[in-house]
Structure formats: structure tokens, C-alpha cells
């Protein structure tokens, strides 16, 4: 929106607000929360604090990016948390070969789960929620089996540096998330795959008849989501310094889905808002941070969160004019 159009804001009536809210609602909410924190939370604007928020939000952002793509195809991926655990569990297993092979294998683990998810959805025709629910259960099991049920401490300096060191003052993990967000944004907006993905999400039968390789698109989407989740798992391991398959990524699917939906991507598919998703993840992160910083009780925190999710999703919902 340019300045002149704001100037003649007589046209800025209820209808305009209604039209713009789904798109910009999440940013408004984010701004409100930031203002609240500036006013009430100590040291909020300190760079260190912002850095911590950025670092903590990265896993959710990365997972949510994949989730947004899956939701764009009218699917859902509940298995991301387990894939994170699997990626995490694979790291210590192969760190003996060095950092790169270990990360590569964690990614291969993600590809593996993604292929299974995608295969179940595309070829067998399972409901995404069921297919990935099965993988949610089995995936963590596999992660535990792989890691022998125990967590492992990591000592590889290079690997730990990913989680602790920074470039230009910004931690590597944040760079990684930013690059991934840009790449996903580019994929959605500018690539054949992105367009096809949206068409599949909007109308699968039509996409099929228009010559879109629907199955390949679906499988690719689930593979991407799983790979992103595995990367998030790797980052988490490097940050914590230990790979705990029973804990890593627990319930992250819910945070990711919330971030995506709050960001204005409808669960009905056919639309992906990458920037909105990132903003949605920040909103949820800032929300928890605010509540921890102000030492709210867990019970209050959860109830407040519930209400805010509802309000955010309500404003972000699509209003169809008929």
C-alpha cells in the first residue's frame, strides 16, 4: 500500500479492513505483541533478547515452511515432530564420519519418511492426516530404535558450532532458516512446482486432467516437508548439544500447523503464504516468550494461548463473497 492511497483513507472502511485482515492480520497481531513487550517486558529490545527469540523460533519456522507447502496441497503432516527426532537420532550415529556425512544422512532419513508419507497419500490414496498419524507414531519409534532408546551427547566442535556460532552477529541457525524461507518462498511463487502444488491443492482432479503429475507433486511435497523437519532436528541437536529422540520435536506439529494457519494459509489448500507463516511462527514464539518473561503460570499461559490462537485464526479466515 502506497502513501497516497493511505492518504485518501476515506475508503478505509469496514469492507477494506475485512478484505485486508486475512492478509495482514498476523502482522497487526505481531506488532501489538511487540508493542506490549516493549512497554512491559524488561530488556525486550536488547539485541541479545531478540537473538534468543530468533534462535528459538528457527525450528518451528523451518518445520512450518514444509507444513505450509503440505497444507497448500490440502494435506497435513503430523509426522514432522517424529522426523525431527529421527534426524536428531541419526546425527550421533554417523558423526564419526564427520559433520557433513552425518547431516546428509539425517536428511536421507527425512527423505525416507517423506517418501513413505507421500507414497501413502499419493499412491494408496490415504487421508494425509491418517497416513502421517501412523508415521507420527512409528517415526518416533524408529528414531528410538535407531538411537537405542538413549540420548547421546555430542562433542564434535564443528557440528556444535552450527548451533552456537554466528555470522555477522546473527547465529548460523537463523541464517539457515532465513535462507530456507527465501527458497521456499521462491519455490511457491516462481517455480513450475509451486504453481502445480497450488493447483493440486485447489482442485486435484482438474490438475490431473491438465497434465499436472499429481502424484509426483504430492510425493515431492511430503519429501520436502520431511527434509525440512529433519534439518530442524539437526539444528536442534546442534543447539542442545545432545540428541534425545524421545523429546526432540515433541508436539511441534501443532505449533507448526498453528503458525501456518495463523499466518493466513487456509487448511483447505490452494494457497500458501510463506511470509505469513514465518510471521505466524514469530507470533507464537513471542507469545510464549512474553508469558515466560512475565512469569505467568503454566495454566494461565495455556488458556491465553488458546484464546489468542482462536482470535488470530478468526481474523485470518477467508471471507468468501458469494
Amino acid at each position, binding site marked *: 500500500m502506497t502513501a497516497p492511497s493511505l492518504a485518501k483513507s476515506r475508503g478505509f472502511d469496514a469492507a477494506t479492513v475485512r478484505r485486508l485482515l486475512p492478509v495482514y492480520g498476523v502482522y497487526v497481531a505481531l506488532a501489538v505483541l511487540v508493542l506490549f513487550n516493549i512497554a512491559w517486558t524488561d530488556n525486550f529490545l536488547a539485541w541479545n533478547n531478540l537473538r534468543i527469540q530468533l534462535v528459538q523460533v528457527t525450528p518451528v519456522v523451518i518445520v512450518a515452511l514444509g507444513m505450509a507447502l503440505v497444507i497448500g496441497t490440502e494435506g497435513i503432516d503430523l509426522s514432522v515432530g517424529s522426523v525431527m527426532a529421527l534426524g536428531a537420532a541419526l546425527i550421533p550415529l554417523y558423526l564419526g564420519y564427520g559433520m557433513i556425512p552425518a547431516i546428509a544422512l539425517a536428511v536421507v532419513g527425512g527423505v525416507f519418511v517423506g517418501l513413505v508419507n507421500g507414497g501413502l497419500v499419493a499412491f494408496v490414496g490415504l487421508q494425509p492426516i491418517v497416513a502421517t498419524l501412523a508415521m507420527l507414531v512409528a517415526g518416533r519409534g524408529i528414531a528410538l530404535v535407531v538411537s537405542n532408546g538413549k540420548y547421546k551427547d555430542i562433542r564434535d566442535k564443528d557440528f556444535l558450532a552450527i548451533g552456537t556460532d554466528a555470522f555477522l552477529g546473527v547465529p548460523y541457525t537463523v541464517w539457515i532458516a532465513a535462507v530456507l524461507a527465501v527458497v521456499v518462498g521462491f519455490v511457491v511463487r516462481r517455480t513450475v512446482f509451486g504453481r502445480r502444488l497450488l493447483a493440486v491443492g*485447489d*482442485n486435484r*482432479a482438474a490438475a490431473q486432467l*491438465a497434465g499436472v503429475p499429481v502424484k509426483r507433486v504430492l510425493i515431492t511435497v511430503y519429501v520436502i516437508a520431511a527434509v525440512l523437519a529433519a534439518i530442524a532436528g539437526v539444528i536442534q541437536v546442534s543447539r542442545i548439544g545432545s540428541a534425545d529422540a524421545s523429546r526432540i520435536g515433541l508436539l511441534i506439529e501443532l505449533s507448526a500447523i498453528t503458525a501456518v494457519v495463523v499466518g493466513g494459509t487456509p487448511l483447505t489448500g490452494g494457497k500458501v503464504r510463506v511470509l505469513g507463516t514465518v510471521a505466524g511462527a514469530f507470533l507464537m514464539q513471542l507469545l510464549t516468550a512474553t508469558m515466560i518473561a512475565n512469569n505467568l503460570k503454566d495454566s494461565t499461559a495455556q488458556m491465553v494461548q488458546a484464546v489468542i490462537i482462536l482470535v488470530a485464526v478468526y481474523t485470518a479466515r477467508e471471507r468468501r463473497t458469494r
Partner: protein
Amino acid sequence: MSASDAPLLEVVGVSKQFPGVRALDDVSFTLRAGEVHALVGENGAGKSTLIKVLTGVYQPDGGDLRHLGKPVTFNGPLDAQAAGISTIYQEVNLVPLMSVARNLFLGREPRNRFGLVDVARMNREAAEILAGYGITSDVRRPLGLMALGAQQMVALARAVMVDARVVVMDEPTSSLEPREVETLFGVIQRLHERGVGIIYVSHRLDELYRICDAVTILRDGKLVHTGLIKDLDRLQLVSHMLGRPMSDVRKAGFTSFGGEHSAAGGKPVLRCADLNSRHKLTGISFEVLPGEVVGLGGLLGAGRSETIKAVAGALPLDSGTVEVDGTTLRRPNPVAALKAGIAVQPEDRKAEGLALGLSIRENIALAVLPRLSTAGVVSERKIDKIVETFISRLRIKASGPHQRVGDLSGGNQQKVLLARLLATGPKVLLLDEPTRGIDVGAKAEVQALIDELAAEGLGVVLVSSDAEELVEGSDRVVVLRDGAVAGELRGDEVTTEHLMNVIATAAS
């Protein structure tokens, strides 16, 4: 029925406003007992809105609604149903997963003395009622497993089952075949005799003149004409609908096909040989020459749409070959078919044709994305170019290329779909009911376009339930029956009479 003169249903000066559109503007309409009242107009004229006001789906912004002379307000479909108004919609609006009987009785199931649904009685009664409509299949089966026409019959049976005083029929014949249409007309006759008022919406002029007493014409949300249908000839009716002078309409005729195409001969651009698919197709063979329009005739369920899908690679084949320009498709699937130059326009444009939530631009470019991109990255410039070309060539009316396709009128949606097909630079066009559910003006444009494309040398396969359209638009007609070829009409044989003849003899 009492001899009261009060009309069954009356709307006076009703208006209905939607964001940006005035769908109904001071419209009045009267339905009397025993009257079959045609409601006509182009798409977007306000017919559907008026029907929804009458059936309680919408509440009008202004004006009165009177039932048997008394003012009423319907707050929902239930209120209208309670007042004896039943509706049959164009697209079958029943629940496919529920059994036929449960669909028939939904909301008014017979109950036993414990207040529970009496399933045995319900099934028995359902079977009896449907037998009256010529349907003898098991009423306990899910409705979705029945043929479309039969489903429409169930919807009809449901609508008139109760003591309906008013029955609204929104294009009821669009998915019926001739025999079923006759059954429907029989039912309408019976209702007429019982004094039931019928509001009949249809694009098919023949039907209107056959069964209707009165006609109301809407255009752009306004009432244009209302009166007895016998006082209005066809040309007058069409000119009222289109808002064009009579002379223009006369020149154009009923369909806009120009007649014979100069199929210069040469090698067939499409050759299908012995297509077989279990339960659906048996030994279908035909060929299409460049510049030729080949019609696929036959009753609904005869295998027309299935044949189209099979050629387009969307229906798995047990055996048979599809050959385009002399090259046989190795593995029939939509991607391969498209690559070979086959473009298909499916019968149900909303379910299988368009991504309604996406823009015109995305829809047109969808099938040719690889061509408009380098290394998987699309070129916006190339897309813009191709989209602009087709928007102007097909005269797609929209606020711009970024408008959502779902917000367009049916005719423009169909054009977007055709634009997508043409953008692929096809050699063969498969058109399944290209003019169904679009208004008269758009229909003419689409028909003219088909002619034009054939003239450019494309092979066209045309499926249409509208016998006139099929006959006037095609150079040859291949008639199907029970998933097999029953006969072929060539040259002078391509007339409605011959077509009916082949279908009739084939069906016996």
C-alpha cells in the same frame, strides 16, 4: 384444492444486494395453482437468486413474499419446506454416501412408536415410490453408486413426495436423457393436474414451449417480461433474454455453428482402436481427421464421457491403443496424452476442470508451465503474453488476469478452460458438453469458436446432450450404446431424426 384466487406464491418488488452486485432489483413474480411457470434469463440474470429467495436460502433486502395471499418470511430452507415449497437443483443435491431410501426420507423419516426411524418401512416405501419413477435398484445401496439420471429422479421423487404445493425445478433436465425427460414431464403433468404450482428453469426452449403455461424473463437482476408463454414466440423470448434486437437474433439462429467443415482429408489426427475398460468400454474404435468435428452421440451412460477420458489417459484401459498423428501413446496417462497433443475439457468444469480458487492467469498457464519456464523457474513475462493473447482472443470478461476463476460467470469459466486447452497447442480437442450450464450468449461464442478451431485444422471430438448442438456442430456422429459403438452418421445422415433413430434402435 380450494378455489381461492390467491396465488400460491407471490413476490412483490423484491431486491437482493450482494457486495458489488445488485442480484435482484425490484422483481415481482406470481405463481398460481396448477401453473407451470418458466423462469428464464441468461446466467447472472438473477434466476438462482430469485429461487433462493423463494426457497428461504436467502432473505431479501427489500420487498414482500406472500404465500397464499399472506405475507411470510422464510428464515431458512426448512421454513419454505414447511410451507410446501420443494426444490430440485440443477446439480443433484443429495448425499452420495447415504442409501437411496435414507436420502429420499432425510428429515421426514417414518418413525415407530418409540420415535425411532422405522428402517424397514422406510425402505419398503422408498422402493414403492421409486418404482413409480421407473427405478428398480436396491434402495439400501448408497445413492452415489447410481447413475446421474437416476439420482436426479430420486431428487425429483423427494421433492414431490410430500404434499408440495410449489415445486421449483432448476434445470432439471440438464443431466437427464430423453427417456428420463419424458418420465419427468409425466410427473410434471400429474403435479399440474393436482394443482401444484411449478417453477421451471431451463435453457432449453423446446421444453419451455412444450410444458410451460407462463414465462417470466429476468435480465441483469431486473424483470423484463412476464406473461403467458403462448403469447410470446421463440425469437421474442430470446431477444428479451439477450436484450438484443430481434433481427440480430434471427440472423444468428439457434446454434452458432456454421455447418460443414472442409475436412480436407489426409491422415487422421486421432485414431482410437479397440479401447476396452472393464464394465465401461468395449471395443471402441473411431478416428478424427484434421479439421473435422466428430460428435459422440448416445444416451447418458452410454460411455461418451468414459471414451473421452480414456482417450485423454484419465481412465485406465485394459487394452486398446490411442494414436495421435500416427504415433501411438505408449503409456496412456494425462501427462503423456497432453504431450502428444490431446487436450480435454471434462464434463464437470467445476469438479474436474478449473482450480476455482486460483486466478485466470494460473488456470490458463497450468498445463503449459514447463514450456513457459527455464530450469523449473517460470517466466512471468511469457505467461503474461500467453494469457493476454487468450483473454482477448476468447473475449474473456474479467476485471483482470488476476481475478479468481471462481468469481467468473459460467460462460467465462468455460472460456478460461478452453484457453488452457488451446494454450497447449493441441492437435486434438476433446470437448465434453462444452456449452452445458452457460448462458445463451456465451454458448454462441463457444460454438463459433469450435467452428473456428476446426477450420484451423484441429481435430475435435464433441460430446453434447443437446441433439441440435451435436447434429449442427458435427461433421460425423459416432453413436455409442452400453460402452460400444452402435453406429455412425455421415454426411446427409447427420440429422436429429437419424440420431434419434440410431439411438432408439440401438437401445431396443
